[in-house]
């Protein structure tokens, strides 16, 4: 126990803290500027100077550790003079342009001057000048206002880990800039914006559009973009989201956001939002009324059900919609339409991979805390760049590296390249051979633990000596051995699995090998998730073989229990997966498709094929917030409320349940309400009047969600659940090994950029300004071999189509790949991709599409 006396008040401290922290804990205020609770100590601004008995000089409270018996004074006349002096120094070169500055009202300098500050100006010389910089798409810099506290720099380097900016020059010429000058060209997380105490780095999105004190409301909700599930605060005025900020202390992201979360909110207020229901008449979508559209859909569904049976109808749910939407939607499909034909794009990787892993390790095997990654002593990354797919999770990996953890990657992972990763870069299509080598070596080093027999019998079959693996994959044996050594000596390792290893020829085999690695070294598994409620859509039973809570439909007892709860029979027959649905539509056996918040014509491989298949439907219903490629084909389009306009819950990749709160008002209906209305018109009453009602039913029906309430979620999210996970269903482990690798040539790869997320981000102008258009990303070697340079227009062709795109030469791309994103209208990578499925995961194989690339236009 340490006792210090501050301003005569005795303060007892459990653990060593700074004098500043000690003072704050006792409610004593000491002014600060360079101090920031999330950042390393700095001691530069000198505002927090205090008197300490027996110390000859004044001391900075933010750096001085409180020692037993210390006597501190913070409010003497001398200290007041010091504060005035420091503030005067800060102001002599300050432009004093508060009326024009967006920070005014929440500026730490302004507040300090108001409280302690100098009144008369004694500085008679010319002030430093620096023009306002609008070089960056989402940031505005005004270095005349910079107080050189370096909070932004410490944030960028020590927390975000991007090290994009620094204090350039010295003395009075100090200012913040990227090392190369000019644009930041950084990760645009905007965490420096949060860190800046003054108006020197701010968001451009709300520039000069409001004053902070004019904000009407602040709503804490969950980011709509990825599976991390960051808490964000939407600040609103005139029913428009003016700004999105993070909040310190929230469980997943603790004061941080990524570019999408911070700058991607503008789609909510987009003029392109759908406003009224539309019905196709004579081939043209025309405005309609809710009554008419709902009546029409209910009638048509009823007719088709009667004529062809419920199994001729299918539904596609959405990893962007809430649990409540998805729950209602699958219940609607099962109860009102009498079919298990319900699935989502989680099928394209996440769902199958999770099922595979849970089949081995039990339910919840991937429900691991994201911040826990920072405390791992080794992180193995396979199948993607976590810092782009799930940026805030990526930060935890960087933090792990900073604390001395080993980062091991299969393939080049751009976002951790500055963290001294042990990289193995196998030739294209040899990942499995590499992992076989790793498993074989680990098996020898660590032995089999003996706890999961089904897995061990598979592991016993794996045999590939290191030298053979190294030769096959084109890596050195030394590197491979070192990699294995680092893995085998880790005591708290983690494994991060991205979509690239799942959506691969032999995806299930890759997952078996990765599971084997995790098993042998006892690693926690994190499954990257690209959509905000990808876990939730699965957990709600939006799958042809699962009921809510991930209970298999094939178990009669489960089915009976749900039938009792729903007071309705549930069909026994497994439904169609999303890909089966497309096939069945093509074959003519599927007559109607109801799509809620999804865009299959863009988000599934072979877009043209999907489009052709859907054209044969008798009824296509789409609920969305924008006129998507799929909506354009629909017979009926319902405009839904967006994420910001409603309540509900998301389940993140940790299986943390979190509450979405309504930030802005808009006329219209939530997805679930539209479905409830349609069901009602079909004579099936669903008695829900709010999202909370639905949640109450979920917690009664799903064993996984048992005993939860909004009230409880209100405080903070629930991790991971309170109900029972499913155990002991482990059957045999089915895998499909990949066919032997094929030779040279180029293959299509899907780029998953930090700044985009499917089709949502293309309506967010901030994000589009950062990453404006689709490009064909190729390695310098690929470019050189074809005499291509940055910006050249090329035609990338596969057997099913082509795209014309500008070239981007990128050292991080592998030589055998052409990387294209799937975000921009008419330019999605998936439009080039043939649909081939892994027989076990039933996820598409994305790495086998051969492409050619040539100069366009001739």
């Amino acid at each position, binding site marked *: 126990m340490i006792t210090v006396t501050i301003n005569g008040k005795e303060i007892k401290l459990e653990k060593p803290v700074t004098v500043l922290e000690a003072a704050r804990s006792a409610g004593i205020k000491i002014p600060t500027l360079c101090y920031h609770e999330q950042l390393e100590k700095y001691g*530069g*601004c000198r505002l927090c100077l205090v008197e300490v008995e027996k110390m000859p*000089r004044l001391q900075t409270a933010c*750096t001085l*550790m409180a020692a037993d018996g210390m006597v501190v004074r913070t409010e003497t006349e001398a200290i007041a003079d010091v504060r005035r002096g420091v503030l*005067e*120094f800060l102001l*002599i070169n300050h432009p004093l342009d508060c009326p024009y500055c967006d920070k005014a009202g929440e500026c730490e300098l302004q507040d300090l001057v108001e409280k302690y500050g100098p009144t008369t100006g004694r500085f008679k010389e010319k002030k430093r000048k620096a023009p306002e910089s609008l070089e960056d798409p989402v940031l505005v810099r005004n270095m005349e206002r910079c107080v050189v506290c370096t909070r932004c720099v410490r944030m960028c380097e020590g927390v975000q880990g991007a090290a994009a900016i620094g204090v350039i020059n*010295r003395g009075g010429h100090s200012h913040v800039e990227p090392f190369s000058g000019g644009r930041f060209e950084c990760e645009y997380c905007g965490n420096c914006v949060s860190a800046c105490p003054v108006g020197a780095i701010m968001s451009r999105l709300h520039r000069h559009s409001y004053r902070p004190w004019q904000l009407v409301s602040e709503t804490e909700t969950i980011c709509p973009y990825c599976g991390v599930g960051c808490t964000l605060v939407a600040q609103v005025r005139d029913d428009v989201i003016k700004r999105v900020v993070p909040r310190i202390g929230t469980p997943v992201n603790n004061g941080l956001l990524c570019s999408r979360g911070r700058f991607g909110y503008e789609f909510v207020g987009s003029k392109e939002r759908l406003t009224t229901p539309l019905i196709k008449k004579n081939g043209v979508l025309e405005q309609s009324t809710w009554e008419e559209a709902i009546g029409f859909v209910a009638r048509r569904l009823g007719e088709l059900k009667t004529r062809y049976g419920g199994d001729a109808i299918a539904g596609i749910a959405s990893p962007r919609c809430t649990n409540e939407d998805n729950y209602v939607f699958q219940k609607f499909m099962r109860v009102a339409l009498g079919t298990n034909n319900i699935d989502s794009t989680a099928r394209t990787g996440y769902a199958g991979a999770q099922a595979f892993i849970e089949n081995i390790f039990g339910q919840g095997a991937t429900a691991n805390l994201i911040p826990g990654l920072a405390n791992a002593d080794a992180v193995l990354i396979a199948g993607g760049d976590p810092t782009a797919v799930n940026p805030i999770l990526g930060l935890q990996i960087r933090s792990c590296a900073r604390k001395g953890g080993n980062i091991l990657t299969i393939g080049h992972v751009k976002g951790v390249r500055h963290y001294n990763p042990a990289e193995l870069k196998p030739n294209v299509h040899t990942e499995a051979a590499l992992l076989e080598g790793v498993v074989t070596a680990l098996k020898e080093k660590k032995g089999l633990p003996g706890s999961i027999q089904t897995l061990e019998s598979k592991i016993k079959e794996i045999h590939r000596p290191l030298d053979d693996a190294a030769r096959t994959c084109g890596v050195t044996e030394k590197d491979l051995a070192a990699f294995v050594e680092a893995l085998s000596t880790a005591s708290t390792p983690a494994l991060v699995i991205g979509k690239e290893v799942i959506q691969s020829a032999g995806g299930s085999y890759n997952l078996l090998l990765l599971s084997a690695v995790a098993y042998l070294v006892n690693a926690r598994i994190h499954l990257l998730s690209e959509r905000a409620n990808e876990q939730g859509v699965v957990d709600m039973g939006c799958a042809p073989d699962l009921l809510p809570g991930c209970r298999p439909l094939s178990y009669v007892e489960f089915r009976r229990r749900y039938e009792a709860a729903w007071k309705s029979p549930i069909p026994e027959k497994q439904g169609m997966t999303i890909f089966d649905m497309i096939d069945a539509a093509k074959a003519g056996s599927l007559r109607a498709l109801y799509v809620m918040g999804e865009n299959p014509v863009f988000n599934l491989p072979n877009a043209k094929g999907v489009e052709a298949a859907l054209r044969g439907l008798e009824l296509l219903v789409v609920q969305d917030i924008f006129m998507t490629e799929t909506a354009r084909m629909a017979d009926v389009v319902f405009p839904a409320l967006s994420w910001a306009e409603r309540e509900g819950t998301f389940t993140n990749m940790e299986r943390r349940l979190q509450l979405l709160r309504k930030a802005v008002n808009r006329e219209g209906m939530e997805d679930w309400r539209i479905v409830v209305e349609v069901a009602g018109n079909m004579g099936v009453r669903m008695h829900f009047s709010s999202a909370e009602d639905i949640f109450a039913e979920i917690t009664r029906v799903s064993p996984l969600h048992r005993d939860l309430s909004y009230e409880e979620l209100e405080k903070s999210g629930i991790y991971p659940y309170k109900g029972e996970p499913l155990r002991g269903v482990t059957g045999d482990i089915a895998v499909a090994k990949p066919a032997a690798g094929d030779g040279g040539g180029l293959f299509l790869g899907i780029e998953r950029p930090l700044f985009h997320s499917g089709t949502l981000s293309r309506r967010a102008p901030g994000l589009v300004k950062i990453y404006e258009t689709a490009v064909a990303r190729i390695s310098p070697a690929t470019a050189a071999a074809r005499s291509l340079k940055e910006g050249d227009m090329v035609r990338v062709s596969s057997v099913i189509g082509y795209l014309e795109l500008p070239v981007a030469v990128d050292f991080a791309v592998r030589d055998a790949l052409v990387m294209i994103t799937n975000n921009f209208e008419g330019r999605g990578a998936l439009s080039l991709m043939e649909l081939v499925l892994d027989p076990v995961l039933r996820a598409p194989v994305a790495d086998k599409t051969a492409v050619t690339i040539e100069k366009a236009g001739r």
Partner: protein
Amino acid sequence: MEKVLLKNIENPHSADIDEYKKAGGYRSLSKALDMASKDIIEEVKKAGLRGRGGAGFPVAMKWTFASGDPKFPKYLLCNADEGEPGTFKDRPILEKNPHLLIEGMVISGYALGAEYGYIYLRGEYPAAKDILNKAISQAYENGYLGDGILGKKTRFHLAVHQGAGAYICGEETALIESLEGDKGQPRIKPPFPVNVGVFSKPTVVNNVETLANLPYLIGIGGEAYARIGSPECPGPKIYCVSGHVERPGVYELPMGTSLKDIIYTHCGGIKGGKKLKAVIPGGISTPVLPPEKIDCPMDFVNMPKHGSMLGSGAVIVMDETVCLVKVCYRALKFFEHESCGKCTPCREGTGWLRSILGRIESGEGMEGDVDLLLSVAGNIIGKTFCPLGDGAASVTQNFIKHFRPEFEAHIKNKGCGARQEKL
């Protein structure tokens, strides 16, 4: 007194290892390696050796802290940044007597358990870089550096790192930052470098001259060493004298030689028989002294009692023709330029002082400017992160303290009376 630090420097080949050995070099090293390392520290303590970098910190104390820290490896850094204006005392050692420094570093490294050393060399000393590198390779070839020194288990590796021209990098923690590849700015203390220094390991930073004392000190023993010069602060000391004296240059004299003696006896008095106007005794950061105050022993303990500091021992002598407002202005220009920008008072205050001084100097001073200078300096002093900012403020305060009328006259006469008279 026999020369210790500047021994042999008239020999044009003094930097060569053979010449150095011929004059008795590297004998102390073999003596030292036969001693227990804690006994070496004991000798240094008995000798009362204080650091020559400016602060006069007791060397044995610093070494005891570092050697007592359980972390390994430990590092020994030689501060050869020599950036204090007026200072050129380390340069002759670096250029003429590099093996003396190397021998001193190996002994020190052995004493405190450091196996790696760096010489952080002032960027503007390119000649010294080549000389040092050559001497280091000679020392490696002769088995005085590397693994198994003199056939013993002792190892010590040494490399030169050249600075990029920032004065602040002479401050030991900024030096460490710079050595690690970061921007040269001081670090928060504690932790002190002796515990968490370069690469987060225990680190001793000592000045060139400090380390160059070691061979001699070990050779004659701590007690004998302690009898040289001032009893409270013994040893030989290099004073570098510039300005208006007959014989400017470097002088190795016993510590505590009086400033008056240095100027009038050793340097031959004021050039051309002019009158002395002011002396800066220890580099630009130390308080200026008027002529009536120069009868003071030049050592770390006594100078503060006489209103100044020994600093780097760089004596800058100014005769009656010098405009002290201009000198003060020039000094502040230096501090403004060299302020690293980390802390507010120094970053903003040095520039402000400079601009006020600038307008006084150029004849545009306003009434109240002298008080304004004192007020601004007062807002800096004692509030900065490191001593650089304090230095800037104290220089201003001391020039005004001793020569206020000259400042006032500048304002009144709209310029330099002294200079106008001369024209």
